[in-house]
């Protein structure tokens, strides 16, 4: 029964598509690479959307195709945009220009070009794990990567996020807006003062929630409870605010199907 229903629905859809295509209302899948591509893209779109109902062979096909294609896509991009210009181009510029990039104007070495043997050496070490005895050497590569990550992120987050965010919090909460003209007197607004004060208290409370080495009891516990509420407000607001952008994405896909493929709008 269920199966018959599906067959009927599919049949109707196919019939409509055939009629619309035959009558020239929408592009034929055999009209060159663009026509075929649009049809293929539309069917992939529908296949992925069908996952909302349940897993099915169509989704499974789209998923496996997407995984294979995208893995290769990023590898190709990695080769052409990182390996060629940033490794081969630094170590052997003239050879790289000859082989891959005739556009490479400057075929001389950078002053510190030999540094690029470092990532190459570690890259090769990394691959040694493919051999039974090379496993522990590939850990040298991981050690290098972890050191790089730690060294870069430590400073980046210390300056931009820790110090930067504290710096942005440091504002007068007197509710005074400085005069526009030099010499004028500032204007006071209770509303501004109120909300500026709320902001500072909210930050302090939320920071207290993240305090780990003190038991959240008594007045400290009460304050950190306010911190939880601040976090909940933050999350509720973040959730609610993001919805609009997500719907816009869906509208984009629907418009693709209805306009570029079916040509009904």
């Amino acid at each position, binding site marked *: 029964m269920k199966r018959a229903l599906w067959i009927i629905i599919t049949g109707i859809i196919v019939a409509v598509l055939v009629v619309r295509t035959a009558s020239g209302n929408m592009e034929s899948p055999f009209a060159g690479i663009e026509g075929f591509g649009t049809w293929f893209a539309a069917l992939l779109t529908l296949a992925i959307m069908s996952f909302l109902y349940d897993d099915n062979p169509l989704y499974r096909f789209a998923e496996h195709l997407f995984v294979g*294609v995208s893995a290769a896509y990023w590898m190709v991009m990695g080769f052409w945009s990182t390996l060629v210009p940033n490794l081969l181009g630094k170590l052997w510029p003239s050879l790289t220009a000859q082989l891959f990039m005739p556009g490479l104007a400057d075929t001389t070495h950078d002053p510190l070009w030999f540094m690029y043997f470092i990532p190459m050496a570690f890259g090769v070490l990394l691959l040694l794990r493919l051999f039974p005895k090379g496993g522990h050497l590939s850990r040298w590569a991981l050690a290098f990567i972890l050191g790089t990550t730690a060294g870069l992120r430590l400073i980046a987050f210390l300056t931009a996020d820790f110090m930067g965010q504290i710096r942005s919090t440091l504002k007068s909460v007197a509710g005074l807006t400085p005069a526009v003209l030099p010499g004028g007197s500032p204007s006071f607004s209770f509303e501004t003062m109120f909300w500026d004060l709320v902001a500072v208290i909210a930050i302090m409370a939320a920071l207290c929630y993240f305090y780990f080495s003190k038991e959240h009891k008594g007045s400290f516990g009460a304050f950190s409870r306010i911190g939880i509420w601040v976090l909940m407000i933050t999350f509720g607001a973040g959730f609610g605010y993001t919805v609009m952008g997500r719907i816009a994405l869906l509208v984009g896909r629907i418009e693709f199907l209805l306009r570029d493929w079916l040509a009904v709008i």
Partner: protein
Amino acid sequence: MRRQPARSPGCLDRHCLPSPTGYRSGRCGGPAALLPLLVLTIWALAGAGLARAQAGASDVSAGDTPSDRGESITVSWEPAPGDRLVDGTVTGYRILRSRSPEGPFEAIGQASPGAARYDDADVENGIDYFYRVETLSLEGAVRSPVIGPAVAQAQWINTNQWNVFVVLVLLLGFNIYYIESIRAGQKPFIRKIAGLEAVNEAVGRATEMGRPILFVPGIQDMNDIQTVAGITILGHIARTVAEYDSQLVVPTSRALVMTTARETVREAYLSVGRPDSYDENNIYYVTDEQFGYVAGVNGYMVRNKPATCFYMGAFFAESLILAETSNSIGAIQVAGTAMPAQLPFFVAACDYTLIGEELFAASAYLSGEPKQLGSIKGQDVGKFLGMVSIVLGVALLTLASVVGWEPLVQAAEFVREFWSTELA
């Protein structure tokens, strides 16, 4: 937002403009005391009319830009009298440069009205340069005398970043102090973290149900500390899983994460004496593409129905796709991420969420090494430092804006400058 050309980023935009909404900075060479002076000048000139405004920039100087790799010379000047907010006549300053004092001078750049400084970043180290500043105004252009020679050179220490250095030393010092004190036998108190307690429970549940455990280490590479923290938590989960002898599956979005996760999990199985149960095929690479990865993980979830899903690491928009799919198969979900934008979705859709800093605390807590707890204590001291600064700074700034007493204003400004990190 657009960055204005030919201005040193950060400094001029924020401080040196005679902005009506801000104080002038001490660091950029324009002490706060100049503001009243400027106001006075404007008052004085207002009556004098435009004839006086013919004068150009004064006190022009040029010298090596400090605390840099060289290849830059800073030209600074006192703005012309006609350079003011209301009824200003100055339209900008043109910087002229030559290799010899006699010229010829060529224009190398322009600064906006209100600017008092220009960084010439098109110079070579160790060569003499000479400068003139041409004040452009509605009344015509006025050139300053020749200034120079100025020579650019590289410095070994960036003194502009002294405050970053102080904060760094403080934070690292406290971290190491507490790590060492635990090594010496002290036991720190660490409050309950809800998501943490859930980890073992969730592993146990999967074992009871005889279904696999899915661990998603985020979609970022090993160059993100969140991934590192996630992998440390994976190590703990793998130890528990190995003890219970259940199945742990880790699909990764990056090859390096796969490699690191394999090392970590193998080590975990070894440490509980079950190296034979370890199967590296359960830790596999899917694809680097964000949504391709999600498609693959979603497929795994609906087909293999894991009883427990962990998400520990850096997540983007895929967070909710994963969480909703895994909810539909009835899995218990524990998430942990330091991506502020994705926390709302994990909090809404998962059973437990490690919020931001809790992820790092959890990774220290679950590592199984007591001395790692010292870093949690170190984090807390950092927070304390920040909170004290906020209270102190806000109080000072508020008082200063109400009272306007000069030493107070300067003290407040110092606190704010201390936390500023933009490279001058």
